[in-house]
């Protein structure tokens, strides 16, 4: 194991003299992973800046991390536990102690568990502020299999399918000096997602790497790319299979790798053969020459890495797009290779699953996982698709859901079919919500818990990532009575009488680190830990799949009754699948394009960030705008059969005239009624969560591709 470079603290302090104290930590303004130096004067954080010695961000930072001080000290932070004092959603609250809050939750959970069984309690998180291991341990010991997160359609869906087809999620290896990078559905320079930072990508580009970008919108990266593929939204699997077909037909694949390390080559060749350039052009709107050029550039340039993002995961084709991208890396010899897509191992510590004590969840409880019979790949990694929970709350089938504990998630804004989510959360008998601010979701709670940020708790970051890094994060300040969610689960677990928790949270962290022979105190001052970096492991050990090979033909999916080979499916609402809708809803609606300043539904109340982006933005091509007499800056009404919202127009040639792009995550903290304007501009008022739109294996929700109509809105917001 490589221990982190233990840059001496004296040098840091000397370099930054004037500050009374500079503490090394690791930002978690998003999924995190950027080393930071936190300046503290008289017990107050005065500045957060990038750590120049840190390998992932090299001193750089994004706007969210740089503004985080304004979140920590925001006057609207929740600072003590609250109990509902009026009707649900009425906005009346009374301050209570932590003891009262925890005892109220515990007595309800005990009641539900004894009357209905633990499965009638749902644990929920959002992107997770890195406490998924603690949340899942609490759930396992409570006895409920029902945990919802974002993972079924974001990142964990990647983890799950890679587990099945090649053993582990392969990561674009920027340190290995890729000569060609394919950025697929990802604006990494604004989002620094998961294992990656935009700094890494930009460094590779300035070192001369070729760039291919697959994106329906003209981002900075799309403009800079050697090849920009402006794809019809929702058709990524067809494009990937079309590229595979070119690589196969032109014999650009790695013959040695294919002969030794893949399972189902002939079947895959046949399947890819169904995706001729002509057919793929018709499906994807991408000129066939471009598909051919992209396939050639990717396959001929060595090494080449694919960097893909959540855009391809939030819909019907999640599993098949994810795995076809892995297959492209495999057949070109870029899998498990330096500068390609590599497998990184963390230091030898407990995995999330081990710490979560998933094996302590009794088999008869696991069998009750909502949707487990339907979404078998999701069940493999203990994920529940949220729609199953809303159904259970609203219909009582297959069994009632009576209590829900939501941590760091704002489902009224971030889950598909927001009106249904709002109804379900209004109806569930007991709801507790832990967050930084009073969100539209928290407004529906019975108990609200004030959560600590990454600057207010000691913990291990990067625990769930596949980069092999572990980042110690430090408690630097205490705000009000805020607790870390780690502590909440620890204390709730103990009060439930759960066995397995340590003496305190630090002891739990020590447990995670125990296999490495380390303790929290030994590592807390280190910038990071990293596991060994090793390539070509498959030459010795093969791949961790049933056949020991990369399964182009997936024996596991076949065993579950799914198509063993990837294929393109039309999304439920598209000009192809629903031509009957086109007269009324003529545009393809895409959602979720990122801004540099917000993280999903977070940060609308942070002054420096909101200043950059005061209003939600809808992107419309000039031709479409002209047709509807929409001018730059006008409020535009966007409608689907589910509902209607308003966002402000950006008229741009950077989008196809047939496509309209809206932003997600919008609510208005400045609106002082308990709804905080969640119906006004929220993309999920427009989305559908009908089960037929979900990915059949992993249960990914279709948040991304719909049909809509637009009109100029006469009223302002």
């Amino acid at each position, binding site marked *: 194991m490589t221990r982190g470079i233990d840059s001496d603290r004296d040098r840091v302090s000397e370099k930054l003299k004037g500050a009374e104290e500079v503490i090394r930590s690791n930002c978690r303004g998003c999924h995190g992973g950027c080393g930071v130096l936190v300046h503290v004067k008289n017990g107050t954080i005065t500045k957060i800046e990038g750590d120049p010695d840190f390998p992932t961000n090299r001193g*750089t930072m994004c706007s969210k991390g*740089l503004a985080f001080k304004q979140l920590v000290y925001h006057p609207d932070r929740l600072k003590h536990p609250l109990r509902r004092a009026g009707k649900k959603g009425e906005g009346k609250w009374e301050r209570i102690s932590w003891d009262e809050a925890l005892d109220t939750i515990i007595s309800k959970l005990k009641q539900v568990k004894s009357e209905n069984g633990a499965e009638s309690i749902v644990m929920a998180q959002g992107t997770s502020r890195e406490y998924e291991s603690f949340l899942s341990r609490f759930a396992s010991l409570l006895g409920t299999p029902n945990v919802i997160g974002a993972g079924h359609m974001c990142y964990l869906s990647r983890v799950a399918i890679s587990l099945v087809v090649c053993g582990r999620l392969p990561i674009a290896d920027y340190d290995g000096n890729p000569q060609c990078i394919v950025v697929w559905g990802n604006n990494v320079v604004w989002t620094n997602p998961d294992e990656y930072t935009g700094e890494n990508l930009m460094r590779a580009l300035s070192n001369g790497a070729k760039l291919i970008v697959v994106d329906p919108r003209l981002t900075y990266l799309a403009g800079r790319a050697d090849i920009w593929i402006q794809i019809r939204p929702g058709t990524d699997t067809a494009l990937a299979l079309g590229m595979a077909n070119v690589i196969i037909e032109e014999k650009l694949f790695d013959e040695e790798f294919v002969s030794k390390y893949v399972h189902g080559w002939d079947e895959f060749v046949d399947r890819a053969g169904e995706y001729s350039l002509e057919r793929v052009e018709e499906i994807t709107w991408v000129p066939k020459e471009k598909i051919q050029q992209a396939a050639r550039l990717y396959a001929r340039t060595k090494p080449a890495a694919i960097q893909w993002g959540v855009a391809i995961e939030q819909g019907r084709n999640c599993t098949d797009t994810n795995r076809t991208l892995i297959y492209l890396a495999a057949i070109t010899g870029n899998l498990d290779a330096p500068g390609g897509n590599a497998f990184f191992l963390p230091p030898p510590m407990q995995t999330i699953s081990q710490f979560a004590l998933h094996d302590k969840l009794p088999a008869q409880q696991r069998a009750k996982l909502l949707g487990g019979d339907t979404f078998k790949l999701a069940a493999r990694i203990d994920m529940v698709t949220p729609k199953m929970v809303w159904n259970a709350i609203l219909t009582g089938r297959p069994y009632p859901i009576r209590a829900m504990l939501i941590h760091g998630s704002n489902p009224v804004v971030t889950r598909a079919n927001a009106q249904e989510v709002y109804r379900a959360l209004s109806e569930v008998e007991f709801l507790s919500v832990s967050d930084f601010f009073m969100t539209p979701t928290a407004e529906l709670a019975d108990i609200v818990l004030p959560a600590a940020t990454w600057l207010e708790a000691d913990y291990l970051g990067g625990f769930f990532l596949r980069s092999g890094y572990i980042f110690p994060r430090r408690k630097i300040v205490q705000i009000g009575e805020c607790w870390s969610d780690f502590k909440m689960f620890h204390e709730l677990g103990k009060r439930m009488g759960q066995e397995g928790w340590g003496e305190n949270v630090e002891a739990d962290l020590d447990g995670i680190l125990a296999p490495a022979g380390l303790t929290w105190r030994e590592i807390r001052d280190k910038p990071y830990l990293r596991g060994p970096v090793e390539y070509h492991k498959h030459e010795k050990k093969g791949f961790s799949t049933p056949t020991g090979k990369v399964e182009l033909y997936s024996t596991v999916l076949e065993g579950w009754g799914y198509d063993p080979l990837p294929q393109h499916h039309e999304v439920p609402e598209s000009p192809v699948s629903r031509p009957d809708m086109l007269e009324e809803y003529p545009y393809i609606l895409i959602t979720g394009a990122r801004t540099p300043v917000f993280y999903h539904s977070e940060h609308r109340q942070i002054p420096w960030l909101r*200043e950059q982006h005061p209003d939600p933005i809808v992107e419309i091509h000039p031709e479409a705008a002209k047709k509807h007499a929409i001018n730059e800056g006008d409020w535009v009404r966007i409608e689907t059969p589910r509902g209607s919202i308003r966002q402000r127009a950006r008229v741009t040639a950077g989008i196809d005239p047939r496509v309209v792009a809206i932003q997600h995550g919008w609510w208005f903290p400045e609106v002082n009624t308990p709804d905080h304007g969640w119906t006004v501009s929220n993309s999920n008022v427009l989305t559908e969560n009908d089960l037929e739109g979900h990915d059949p294996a992993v249960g990914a929700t279709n948040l991304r591709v719909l049909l809509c109509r637009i009109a100029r809105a006469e009223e302002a917001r």
Partner: protein
Amino acid sequence: MVEERTLVVDSAACVGCLACEIACKQENDLPVGSSWIRVHQDAPYDEEGRPQTRYLVTHCMHCRRPRCMEACPEDAITKREDGVVLIDAQACSGCMMCIEACPFGVIRFDDERGVAQKCTLCVERLADGLQPACVAACLSHCIHSGTPAEVAEKIGESRVRLWYKSIV
């Protein structure tokens, strides 16, 4: 002789992430409404037949002949030996003549204190041997600070010449 310091943005490499703006606001504790470095998004345009999304970054150029300094009736604006142009808040009367005179539109008015403000090239950080906050934060490493020769080495003579042209 003290060497001249520059701040040059290689706009073609700017990804529009806004980190420089927020880093500057944090470093200088700027309120909403005041930014000493600004990232502007251009409308998409074609360059050699290829569509581009580009950003334009504006900031104090620390001009060789500062029009702001010439316009200031209070002599509140000075150019240091290392080329950094500074506004002395104590001496500033808030007349806004400098704001009118600045050809780049990068001097802001602080309503609360009633004075003109702008980029200081983070002179306190420079004194500590650190880069300006915007330079340190920039993930595409497209903001460069140093002597003209140092910057030229990084981004090429031609871009630095462009910068010279703009500040004379």
